[in-house]
């Protein structure tokens, strides 16, 4: 009698646990975006989480926690929360550099990343500068190295890396001025505080089409057709040497600690796949010059570890890193 009671209780408990576990998510989820509000990563997260909320049945609240090196403050914060799937970290490829810059003491594979996609980078100038083509700009920069001020969001961001790649591939040297995000750096270029700005096309398209900035070249092998502006040529056309360093593509999305419960992760993957296939996300991507990815699990892990070693070693070789990537166990690309 006693025994059967215990067995009954045990079964009940087990069932209860299963039922409990199946209940993820039971409450609202928080997505900690490590970059500023209104930037590419932020918008992307707000779009995808708003769609995912519908499939998850709970709200995903997006908050911003900026600062540190390559978003390290937000990442450390999100990672310090319980690994239960209720705290996500909205991040992008740029965050893989936090390790070698001394803001993150782990490899990046402690995260399971969900890649939404990205927008290609474009190099632009203030309209009243004399640089009409990329060649004008590069030659001017070569003639008087470090005289031309160039902005990109914080050191170690993808835009900064794209700028470094332009310098390496063309031999020009700019005076790099860091800003807190893409919006302030574009603002500085419009105000004329700096002459050159590198951010993504998604972040710049309004200003380019409104004539507040002048696009000189796409930092991808292909040219890009922008409605109402014409075709922005690929910078590879005039400087083929760039192909050695570029493209460094954006991979915007969010992450959950890899040791979160599998059940929670699979619920998230399911909602993510459904959300990224919705018309709303698709049309948003098209309107905003994004290319969608949808990679999760092992696929995104491979992409991110390639990015990690690429970024970390590039930065280390450029002297822009403070921590030896070898010490963190990051393999050479």
């Amino acid at each position, binding site marked *: 009698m006693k025994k059967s009671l215990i067995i009954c209780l045990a079964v009940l408990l087990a069932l209860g646990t299963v039922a409990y576990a199946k209940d993820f998510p039971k409450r609202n989820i928080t997505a900690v975006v490590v970059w500023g509000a209104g930037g590419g990563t932020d918008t992307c997260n*707000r779009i995808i989480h708003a769609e995912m909320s519908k499939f998850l049945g709970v709200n995903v609240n997006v908050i911003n926690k900026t600062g540190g090196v390559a978003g390290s403050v937000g990442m450390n914060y999100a990672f310090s929360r319980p690994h239960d799937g209720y705290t996500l970290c909205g991040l992008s490829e740029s965050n893989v550099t936090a390790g070698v810059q001394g803001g993150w003491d782990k490899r990046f594979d402690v995260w399971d990343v969900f890649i939404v996609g990205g927008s290609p980078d474009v190099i632009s100038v203030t309209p009243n500068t004399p640089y009409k083509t990329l060649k004008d700009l590069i030659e001017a920069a070569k003639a008087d190295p470090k005289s031309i001020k160039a902005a990109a969001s914080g050191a170690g961001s993808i835009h900064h890396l794209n700028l470094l790649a332009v310098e390496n591939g063309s031999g020009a040297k700019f005076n790099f001025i860091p800003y807190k995000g893409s919006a302030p750096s574009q603002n500085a270029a419009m105000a004329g505080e700096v002459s050159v700005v590198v951010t993504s096309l998604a972040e710049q398209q309004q200003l380019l089409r409104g004539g507040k900035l002048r696009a000189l070249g796409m930092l991808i092998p292909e040219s890009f057709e922008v409605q109402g502006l014409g075709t922005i040529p690929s910078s590879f056309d005039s400087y083929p040497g760039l192909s050695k360093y570029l493209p460094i593509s954006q991979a915007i999305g969010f992450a959950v600690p890899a040791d979160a419960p599998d059940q929670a992760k699979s619920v998230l993957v399911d909602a993510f796949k459904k959300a990224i296939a919705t018309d709303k996300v698709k049309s948003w991507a098209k309107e905003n010059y994004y290319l969608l990815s949808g990679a999760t699990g092992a696929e995104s892990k491979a992409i991110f570890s390639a990015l990690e070693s690429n970024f970390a070693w590039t930065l280390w070789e450029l002297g822009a890193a403070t921590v030896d990537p070898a010490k963190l166990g990051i393999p050479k690309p």
Partner: protein
Amino acid sequence: MMLLERIGTFFTIILQLVSEPITLAILFGSVLLGIIFGAMPGLTSTLGVALLTALTYGMDTATAMVCLLAIYVGGTYGGSYASILINIPGTAAAAATALDGYPLALKGEAGRAIGLTTTASAIGTSISMLFVVSISPIISYFALQFTSFEFFLLAFFGILISGTLTSPDLVIKGWISGFLGLFMACVGRDLLQFYPRFTFGFTQLDSGVEVVPVLIGAFGIPQIIQVLKERFQIGETQKLQRIIPEIGTVIRNVPAIIRSALIGVGIGAVPGIGEDIAGWVSYGTAKNTSKHPETFGKGELQGVLASETANNACVGGAQIPLLNLGIPGSPPAAMLLGALMLHGVTPGPMITFEHPTFITEVAAILLLSSLAMWVTGMLLAKQVVKVLRIPPPIFMPIIGMLCIIGSYSLGLNIFNLYLMLPVGIICYFLTEMGYPIAPLVIGVILGPMADENLRRALMVSQGSFMPVFTRPVSLLLFLVIVWTVISQFQFYKNFKNKLVARLRRKKSVAAVGSNGPPAEE
């Protein structure tokens, strides 16, 4: 013709919005929620807009904007409740309101003060709406004149002026308090080279000192200790009858209200700075231009009107760079930017082509929000003042609990509580020694901006300070700062008095010479 057409669209949009009961319900609901967020120490309008953003995803763009702008307007106004009633600003934006609002409450005129701030806030928002709809491209051109040097000088000026205005005895105490705040803002990893400063190895300090726990600790804890220590009942609550809008008082102060609204719009339009600094600058201007500056800080209605009109006018001002350039003018506007992009509206120079009526729509919604705020505020004011009837031994511990919850609710971070308590206790002793607290909080808020922009400015100019004198806006700001400092010294005051006396003598001599009858003294 363009203008007429625009006015036509404006009223069509208002009619459309008003004719839908659901929109109206959302409008009033959001305003009320905003007021609650504003009035609760620790919950800010930025947080309110951020939390509502996700909820608006299912709505169409216009309804979502009604929801978000209404909570923004309500939150900015709601901060004044806590400032006036308990001397703990509900939001940083309302810190300047406490200077005169609380003395008014002590005189038993809390209801009157709230009634007037309600009207002033509504007028402020409405005036800012006019700017959004009429000359926003011109204003956003001026917003682009702000580079790193200007941002630094503006932040520095904000800290300085709040120090100047709040010192009960020696002005230097206000500045000391402001620089303490500036120092606290330096804690954490620096924003340009990521070097950890004054963190002593605590990773929690890496992201710096958070504003909300400091705000609550610095204002809340000293106030609670003070009230419990002195065992007094805040204000007599008998004089409640004067909550109805005092048209007469408002009309008498029309020039001051318009001036405050202009200051609010201007500061709101500058990217990155918001309601808090607008309130201070407006309060300072009101005090400096007043015929009786000595009454400020002792319950001067004009002081309350100045800061409240300006911080609400800032809401509209902040929309200007947001809509025309895609640059948020204030922290809550940054949240709005995210919400807009969520709805497929990318603000920027092309917005008038892609969404031709959008700016007019925002203006219409701002007007509706300010009306809704006014109605709600007038209904609420009478009820809210009743909290003062609760005896302090019960009321103050409740406020204490709210302070703790407020600090913790931000990011559910227990470290914020460890931060709030010591800050509060230090601030209590500072208050006892006659150091004002507001500049310290303003220092913490504006410190990162001053620090980051000064260093970036020097990077851009390669170490030269010359741009301060060659750029018109920064030269102006620099001169204002120098004047703010010098005008506090005795030799300047003597000099000024002499000058004024001499001018007066000359005038009277001239008057005697030309007209015959001597000028009156």
